[in-house]
């Protein structure tokens, strides 16, 4: 039964990945703090759930990604920058993709 749940999680992961991807694409088109919050919230969710389903490396990657997003959000709030680390975001997305064998 647990294996079945893990497989369901794995097969539903494409949608989670696509959601992150669409948040990043939207942010690249136009900066929106709410979109950045949405991205962080969804990355946070994966960090919490992936590890509980046995995908520890993926969880760790998402936790690091979440920390970066948190830093970016704080920088935006303090008006230090409006330039996001898209290059780093892309690196994390590649790791997330390979962490769930989505290649």
């Amino acid at each position: 039964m647990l294996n079945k749940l893990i497989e369901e999680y794995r097969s539903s992961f494409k949608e989670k990945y696509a959601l992150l991807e669409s948040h990043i694409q939207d942010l690249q088109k136009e900066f929106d703090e709410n979109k950045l919050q949405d991205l962080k919230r969804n990355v946070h969710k994966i960090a919490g759930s992936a590890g509980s389903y046995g995908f520890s490396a993926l969880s760790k990657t998402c936790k690091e990604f979440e920390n970066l997003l948190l830093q970016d959000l704080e920088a935006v709030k303090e008006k230090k920058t409006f330039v996001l680390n898209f290059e780093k975001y892309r690196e994390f997305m590649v790791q997330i993709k390979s962490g769930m064998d989505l290649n």
Partner: protein
Amino acid sequence: MFINRERIENAMRSLTKMIVVDDDKDILTIIQYCLEGMSEISIKYCQTAQEAIQEALVFLPDLMLVDVMMPGMDGIAMVEAMRLMPSLANIPVVFVTAKIQKEEIDSYFKLGVADVITKPFDPIGLPETIQKIWLKINRTKEELKDVK
């Protein structure tokens, strides 16, 4: 260490109703699977803090497992709201969260939560973790009774 088995069994029997709230359906699914074996406990699952409060007002759970980071009302606001409601004020709350920086944990205990379960968690070990927390809550209650 001497363990009073009868005392433990009695304490565990007093946990009959629980509410779990998390906005992440994947987390609710795995918790539900993990706790299926605890058939003596009736468990309600909710996806928002508001839903959990409404449910708690009717169901009056012995224990609540609460996610911290939820859209709208988060776990912290939920506990603050519960503390203002006489029928919910004393229900022990356990946070289940990935937000576990030292200052965050300190703030949870300052808020009065009974314990914190870190995300990600080991699904197989979750029932045992809950039992341990419930025994700790009971021990604290009994110690308080003794003081009185």
